[in-house]
């Protein structure tokens, strides 16, 4: 059988990749180890969060699925950092772990361009360094013009609990045992990474009166720019806050040697995420801290699990019991599933182009945890970009590369392919140097046009964007023309610019009627004008360096005077531009100057 695109893996990256390719009209095959686990959320029950929520909106702006499915299945919605500036606001939904995957599966199944097969891919079929298909574990071969690997944590997955190591994927699924070896044979550098998940508790065994309730926001939000809210404000499921106790810490310290991470497993372990430490790590590293926050979060309307955020551990089951029972409100709690750590293989993302195509095998793309990231949103956005770019490639078109001042997605992919990863990569707002430009509120204004151009956004939705842009400009014009008498006579524009005033105070003075979001957008543009301009200026500087392309055939051994570390790093990454070179850690500005001087000479010689 032959397809245009084959997606290997049905997690959040795989789903977006399959939809992107199929929506662009390409016959797509999704190969997954387990159809009913497609779009499963094996760890936390959120979609979104700081920076991640903005990514979900970016996915939606480009024509991806995550936001739409989350909007229809969420249990609770919050706008994080609402009290801070507009640049750092970000949506987070408590997602329903049953409803979300179910809806995603239905959408996949009913798509005319998508077929799904339940099996594992064992090997890649390659001719002349170009992928032509995949081989399944049952021996079947499927041909394809492009293949996207989204293997998640499944390559050589090991579950770690106490001193036990079990060969298994998350939640008892089949791991992929051979693929990473075969990738290594092809020349990929393989990394060993690790992540963990906390225990799940039976809801009716928790005494919530001893905890603090954390309700959702009392204002409606949606991830998608096309959706109306599907939830009811007063029917949102709350979360609860509790804390570790002195007893918890004592149990952990007394049993530390039983934790997989603290010596119970002797061989060297994969590298875990710095941003999501286990409770053992937190207690050991912050000894003077009397207590740590834990959030008790519902996982679904359809079952009884409560997720204990902040309590991931690789202690054996009996110690986990004691630890859980030491928490206020959980004295009699019943553990439904124990916490575990999982180790898996990933590739070094520096083996990728910014299109997510591998440098080693043409038409092979990778996305998600295989690239060393962590998180559903990080995975989904890479899946989307890999799906778009694999499609563009087989259409003979240039790839869509998002810049760092254009999208968090651009920041994430550039970081991956430029800096590589040491531990599982999580998006943080601090990774974005132009985050005032990368706001939650303007994701559509930033990216919809790209979505339209690549064919994932239809004409109707595109026209809506154009109308919105026009209206925002009209609002600003009107504000400049109209005046108000406050402490002195001033234009409405000046009035709105003042931090203490709101555009909604003077909304009725405008000649035309405008949408809430349009007014809000105009207000942000006016209020933060100075800073937005500053960010754009900075971004322009970056683009100048970005436009200085490094010749593909450059031999770094020929460039005199490079510091040796820089030479090694440049050879590893092979950056496409001076801008990218500068972002490689270990490459200093002076190395970039040398490179720039060498390039001038190189081009002169070739002129």
């Amino acid at each position: 059988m032959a397809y245009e695109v084959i997606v290997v893996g049905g997690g959040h990256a795989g789903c977006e990749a399959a939809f992107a390719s199929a929506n662009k009209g390409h016959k797509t095959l999704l190969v997954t180890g387990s159809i009913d686990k497609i779009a499963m959320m094996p760890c936390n029950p959120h979609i979104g969060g700081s920076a991640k929520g903005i990514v979900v909106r970016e996915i939606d702006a480009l024509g991806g699925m995550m936001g739409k499915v989350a909007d229809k299945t969420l249990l609770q919605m919050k706008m994080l950092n609402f009290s801070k500036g507009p640049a750092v606001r970000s949506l987070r939904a408590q997602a329903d772990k049953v409803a979300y995957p179910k809806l995603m599966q239905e959408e996949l199944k009913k798509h005319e361009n998508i077929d799904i097969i339940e099996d594992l891919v064992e090997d890649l079929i390659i001719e002349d360094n170009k992928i032509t298909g995949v081989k399944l574990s049952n021996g079947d071969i499927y041909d394809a013009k492009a293949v996207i690997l989204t293997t998640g944590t499944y390559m050589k997955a090991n579950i770690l609990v106490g001193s036990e190591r079990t060969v298994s994927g998350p939640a008892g699924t089949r791991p992929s045992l051979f693929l990473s070896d075969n990738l290594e044979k092809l020349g990929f550098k393989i990394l060993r990474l690790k992540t963990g998940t906390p225990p799940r508790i039976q809801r009716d065994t928790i005494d919530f009166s001893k905890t603090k309730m954390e309700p959702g926001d009392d204002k409606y939000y949606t991830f998608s720019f096309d959706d109306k809210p599907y939830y009811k404000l007063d029917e949102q499921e709350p979360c609860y806050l509790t804390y570790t106790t002195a007893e918890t810490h004592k149990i952990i310290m007394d049993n530390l040697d039983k934790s997989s991470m603290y010596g119970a497993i002797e061989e060297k372990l994969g590298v875990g995420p710095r941003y999501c430490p286990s409770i053992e790590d937190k207690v050991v590293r912050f000894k003077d801290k009397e207590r740590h926050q834990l959030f008790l979060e519902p996982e679904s309307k359809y079952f009884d699990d409560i997720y204990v955020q902040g309590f991931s551990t690789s202690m054996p089951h009996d110690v986990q019991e004691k630890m859980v029972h030491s928490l206020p409100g959980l004295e009699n709690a019943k553990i439904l599933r124990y916490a575990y750590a999982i180790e898996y293989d990933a590739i070094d993302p520096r083996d990728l182009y910014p299109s997510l195509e591998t440098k080693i095998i043409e038409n092979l793309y990778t996305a998600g945890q295989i690239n060393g990231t962590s998180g559903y949103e990080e995975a989904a956005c890479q899946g989307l970009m890999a799906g778009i770019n694999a499609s563009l490639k087989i259409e003979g078109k240039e790839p869509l590369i998002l810049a760092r001042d254009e999208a968090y997605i651009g920041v994430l992919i550039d970081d991956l392919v430029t800096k590589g990863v040491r531990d599982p990569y999580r998006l943080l707002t601090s990774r974005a140097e132009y985050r005032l430009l990368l706001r939650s509120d303007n994701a559509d204004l930033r990216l919809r046009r790209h979505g339209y151009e690549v064919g994932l956004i239809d004409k109707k939705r595109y026209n809506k964007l154009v109308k919105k842009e026009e209206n925002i400009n009209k609002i600003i014009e009107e504000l400049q023309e109209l005046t108000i008498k406050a402490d002195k006579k001033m234009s409405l524009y000046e009035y709105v610019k003042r931090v203490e005033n709101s555009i909604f105070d003077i909304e009725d003075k405008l000649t035309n009627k405008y949408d809430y979001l349009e007014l809000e957008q105009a207000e942000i543009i006016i209020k933060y004008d100075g800073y937005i301009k500053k960010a754009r200026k900075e971004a322009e500087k970056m683009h100048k360096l970005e436009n200085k392309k490094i010749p593909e055939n450059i031999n770094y051994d020929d460039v005199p005077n490079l510091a040796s570390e820089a030479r090694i790093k440049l050879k590893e990454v092979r950056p496409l531009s001076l801008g990218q070179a500068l972002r490689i850690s270990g490459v200093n500005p002076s190395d970039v100057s040398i490179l720039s001087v060498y390039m001038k000479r190189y081009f002169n010689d070739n002129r």
Partner: protein
Amino acid sequence: MNDTICAISTAVGVGAISIVRVSGDEAISIVNKICDKDLTKKASHTINYGHIVDGNEVIDEVMISIMKAPKTFTREDIVEINCHGGISSTNKILELLLNNGARLAEPGEFTKRAFLNGRIDLLEAESVMDMIDAKTENARKLAMNGIEGKISNLIHEIVDRLYDINSNIEVNIDYPEYEDIEVMTEGQIQDVSKFIDEKLKKLLIESENGKIIKEGINTLILGRPNVGKSSILNKLINEDKAIVTDIAGTTRDIVEGQIRVGGVLLNIIDTAGIRETEDVVEKIGVEKSLNLIKDANLIILVLNNNEPLTDEDKKLLEITKDKKRIIVVNKIDLDTKLDTTGLEDVVKVSATKDIDILKDKISDLYNLEELNNKELTYLSNSRQISLVKKAISINNHLMESFNSGIPIDILEIDIKEICETLNEIIGESYDDKLIDRLFANFCLGK
């Protein structure tokens, strides 16, 4: 391969010894071709006796220092030929090197290579340039401080604090629900902003002093005819024989000579005006005199002890009253006919005898005692100073935005920009043009 460059590294002109420096992969082999000794087998960091030869003709008897990469100024092989001073023999050696494959160094190219090869940071590179220009002991000390990274340390101290603030703000954004983490408050931002303002303004003021040390004090000796201006000038000159040369640059138009007093350089403005015996103000016109006065950092106003105060004296006192000035009452060996009541602290001298008291006064005025003993930590060139000024102005913007209620995560943009501006002083951020411009300003050689 990096080509090999050479240049005369000492000042061109008469001197006992001149140094010709060669740097690059072929430095040793090229010099070897014009030397009667085999230099290729000499150990690194040795100085060797020999002759520079052109065929059979001996050009000069020299000492040759061999320093092999990487422990050299440019991190390349360096050969320095210490030859006899004088233009002709030095030039001949340079010519021989050029004929044997070396290329004449561009201005500042040795330092540029040192910078590009990671030997020194940008600030250090600038200090090297300052060192070459250093005309007095204080200026040399100032240049040395830059090289040792004292300024870098100071900047790092400020920048580190800013990084702390910003990382805290970032954590607050990324983990908004974690109460374990200290929340950055407006008050803390205000504190930091004040801290930056104080530190940078102090640095700026000290740098102004640093500039004086490096560039000298523009001094105008003023007085009506026959009060003894030239004797005072001559006396100052006699104290220091190695003086009164033309100096280059923007001050060329107004400065006519330099005198070293204690550890500080006086740039004497308008020596012609001093030596003329006619009325300065009348002769050159009021406007020009006012301009001269404006250009001066220091006015030495000379009065005659042997005559009463004239209208002309009064006029000079009036037009210099807002300037930093020293009033010198000269000719105290003659009868006192001058009434000095109402005048500020005057210095009484007899220029024909000695004027130590005047020199002490100048030293006091510029805290030279203090400057001589103190650890000098100044920015001493205009690029650095303008960056500090820029950082101060961004900081002012930060305060304004803060006062108008802009949220912390946006204020952070200003803090980051201050960081980047300060980083630019120590060369830790990248700007293509900056580097080109910087090295074009360097003098030839090193």
